[in-house]
């Protein structure tokens, strides 16, 4: 099975490799087949040094086999190149590097730049402006972000805020096709990075707050035609639930739960989008991804589990047919979207090797889940949690803290984690060398008023009454190294602001991440010892990468440009006196404007 996949991948790749280096493409194929590396085994032994998708490999490890930059040499790291994107909203994307070209997609208006790494100063080779509809900005919930692109078979793929997926020729920037998947008129936007699996581009929608019906769509990579669409509410047929569907837990078993776990017809605009990360296991031929919070009904108005919101689907990569589902937060009370990344690794659990996925979840638990069955093997808090009292491994369900149940008109205090969760979308990394997961985490709690009783239809949106603040310790963020086998925190670094950037970890034994006040940091992957840091022009909320340049040297790149939900106070110039702005996040971030101004810039770092 695996070798077939490799052959197929190579065959597809070579259709478009007339002028390009096949080695770079081999990198994507090679890493794709190594999702199941045991700890200590390199998941990407033939790493060409390219970076073809935000999560590096299909297993989403964000681990690079490059090892020129080590715990010793990292201290000599210096700026080798910069590039202003020309935009000032939150920059969340990962750059890509393929065939000595770097690709960047900006936040709205989602301009794509190709930079020529072979030339001094990495000049722009081509750029592409998709000219998204301005009205899309009024539909996006939190900031007008974009989380990155994907490269496959001579093309780059990305999504626009106004609901399109676009394929460009990687060499020229020429448009191959444009597929309109989401409709901003219905409140749908697209902010996620697509994942390309074989000949399909996988894309999900955002907009749970606006009463959309969530979905994941597979688009044919060659034609742009929709191959299949799986909805996340409604009848089994629409959800692509059929004979293969074998969820592990009872509460996910039964006919048409996407209807019956909602009152009346509430499922029709029940939210449950897919705006986060997708992983792929070529051996099992399964894709894994999570669904967002249910909406737009208040929790009291949607009794039931609200399937298939805030959960994790395993689906057949070719047909989209569901294979299993696990719900992190049935009947979500706290806006705990289930869209975070899942890292596919094989680990010894109770003496036996298991194919698992690691999921640092918004509700604050680090889940180790058997990725063949959906069974939760362990779920341990990686941040301070008050909203639940643990995960019942017999039922798979969280044990709710009854004293914190929101009831109408009352303010519930000290709900931890706050709505952005123990961590939000910002992706962690896994090193097979250390066996640790590196988690960029939040330490935030909130006061939550269950009812925004004052809403007046037809007048401007007045946000719900949510106030967020730092959790125990007073730091709002933490960078955590977690041992998923030992089920414990190994070390951590407290950060003043939420750590809203992704992570990259390398065979050189170094982990990189950024902070919202603009520091780009390198730490020892084994010990957490700070090794090096550089102050970029704006806060960092994007995903760092590392790659091999045309000169054979290892480089590290990151986009600086604060914004996003957490950084909206800077990027959106919100009034710091309005504590409930940006859904309450502003209250926790009043000092951010002093710590970081806005502006998007790419930084490339290298050794002398």
């Amino acid at each position, binding site marked *: 099975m695996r070798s077939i996949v490799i052959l197929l991948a190579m065959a597809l790749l070579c259709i478009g490799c007339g002028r390009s280096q096949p080695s770079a493409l081999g990198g994507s194929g090679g890493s794709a087949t190594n999702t199941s590396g045991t700890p200590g085994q390199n998941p990407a032994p033939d790493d060409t040094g390219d970076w073809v998708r935000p999560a590096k490999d299909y297993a989403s490890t964000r681990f690079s086999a490059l090892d020129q930059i080590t715990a010793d040499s990292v201290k000599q790291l210096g700026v080798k190149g910069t590039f202003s994107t020309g935009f000032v909203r939150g920059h969340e994307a990962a750059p890509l590097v393929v065939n000595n070209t770097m690709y960047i997609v900006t936040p709205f208006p989602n301009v794509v730049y190709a930079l020529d790494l072979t030339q001094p100063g990495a000049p722009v080779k081509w750029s592409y402006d998709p000219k998204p509809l301005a009205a899309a900005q009024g539909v996006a919930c939190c900031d007008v972000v974009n989380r990155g692109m994907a490269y496959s078979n001579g093309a780059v793929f990305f999504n626009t805020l106004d609901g399109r997926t676009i394929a460009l020729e990687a060499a020229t920037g020429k448009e191959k096709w444009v597929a309109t998947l989401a409709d901003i008129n*219905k409140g749908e936007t697209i902010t996620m990075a697509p994942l390309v699996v074989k000949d399909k581009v996988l894309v999900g929608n955002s907009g749970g707050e*606006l009463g959309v019906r969530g979905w994941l769509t597979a688009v044919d990579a060659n034609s742009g035609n929709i191959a299949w669409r799986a909805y996340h509410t409604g009848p089994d047929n629409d959800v692509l639930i059929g004979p293969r569907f074998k969820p592990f837990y009872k509460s996910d078993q039964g006919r048409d739960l996407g209807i019956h776990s909602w009152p009346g017809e509430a499922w029709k605009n029940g939210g449950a989008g897919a705006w986060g990360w997708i992983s792929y296991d070529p051996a099992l031929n399964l894709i894994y991804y999570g669904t967002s919070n249910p909406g737009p009904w208040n929790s009291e108005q949607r009794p039931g589990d609200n399937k298939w919101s805030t959960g994790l689907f395993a689906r057949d990569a070719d047909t989209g047919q569901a294979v299993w589902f696990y719900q992190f937060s049935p009947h979500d009370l706290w806006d705990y979207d289930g869209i975070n990344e899942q890292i596919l690794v094989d680990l010894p659990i109770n003496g036996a090797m298991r194919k698992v996925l690691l999921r640092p979840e918004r509700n604050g638990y680090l889940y180790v889940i058997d990725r063949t069955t959906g069974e939760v093997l362990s779920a341990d808090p990686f941040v301070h949690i008050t909203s639940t009292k643990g995960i019942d491994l017999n039922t798979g369900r969280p044990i709710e803290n009854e004293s914190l149940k929101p009831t109408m008109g009352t303010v519930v205090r000290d709900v931890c984690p706050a709505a952005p969760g123990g961590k939000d979308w910002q992706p962690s990394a896994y090193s097979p060398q250390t066996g640790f997961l590196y988690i960029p985490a939040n330490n935030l709690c909130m006061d939550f008023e269950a*009812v925004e009783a004052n809403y007046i239809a037809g007048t401007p949106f007045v946000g719900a009454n949510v106030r967020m603040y730092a959790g125990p310790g007073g730091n709002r963020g933490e960078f955590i190294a977690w041992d998923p086998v030992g089920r414990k925190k190994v070390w951590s670094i407290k950060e003043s602001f939420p750590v809203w950037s992704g992570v990259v970890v390398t065979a050189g034994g170094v982990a990189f991440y950024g902070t919202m006040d603009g520091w780009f940091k390198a730490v020892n992957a084994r010990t957490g010892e700070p090794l090096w840091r550089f102050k970029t022009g704006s806060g960092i909320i994007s995903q760092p990468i590392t790659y091999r340049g045309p000169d054979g040297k290892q480089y590290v790149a990151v986009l600086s440009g604060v914004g996003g939900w957490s950084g909206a106070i800077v990027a959106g110039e919100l009034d710091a*006196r309005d504590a409930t702005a940006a859904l309450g996040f502003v209250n926790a971030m009043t000092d951010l404007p002093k710590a970081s101004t806005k502006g998007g810039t790419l930084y490339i770092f290298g050794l002398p």
Partner: protein
Amino acid sequence: MSIAIATLLASVLTAAAFAASVGGSALRVCSDPNNLPFSNTQREGFENRIADLLAHDLGATVKYTWWAQRRGFLRNTLEAGLCDVVIGYPSHADSVLTTAPYYRSTYVFVTRHASNLRIRSFDEPALRTMRIGVQLVGDDGANSPPAHALSRRGIIGNLVGYTVYGDYRTNSPPSSIIAAVARGDVDVAAVWGPLAGYFAARQSVALDLAPVRPQQDGPLPQAFDISMAVRKSDRARLDRLNAFLVQHRRDVDAILARYHVPRVDR
């Protein structure tokens, strides 16, 4: 002589500064492009009419910044400095300065006249079995007060949600809930007054409107004051708008009456 010139110059400068601060040749209004009866780009809404009246009073012309009234509306318009006045805004809001209220309306029950249902109160037993349309806003506890009043009474499974954002391709997307009553998709709907008044008058069947009761349902108000809004730093403009509203109370009331806006007393 020199004193006279200085005084003259000062008064010219003051007038210019005032004109600039209040709008001068342009009254810059933040508004939704597709939200009748409040506003639209054809300037057919009652907020467009009130803006015209205000502009006339200031000797200015109206210049719109159009933005859908969703999350981020204020952030991207008023607070971004692209425009200076929001014509209709909840008076209790604390992120902006609001004028004295210039009208107060209420959520109303909308039924087909021919159905003779006479729904007046959330406590009506018949509501337990009817199909009830409610306006939906967003998650995180933000929904319309009638939806909360009904769920407080355990009336949940027979609610049908109509998002206030609706399908933005259609004219005035929030009006779909009124059309649903007229068509018989729902037996009754609880709708914000200005929207209900305007669209009820435009259906092919006769619709009845009645203010929901109780008007204060436990912690939940069902009637609200509406004001104009400016940036928090814009005290001078606020004073000018308040003066306008006092001076033109009758004219503004007449506009609201023409649009069938149900108004209630405090």
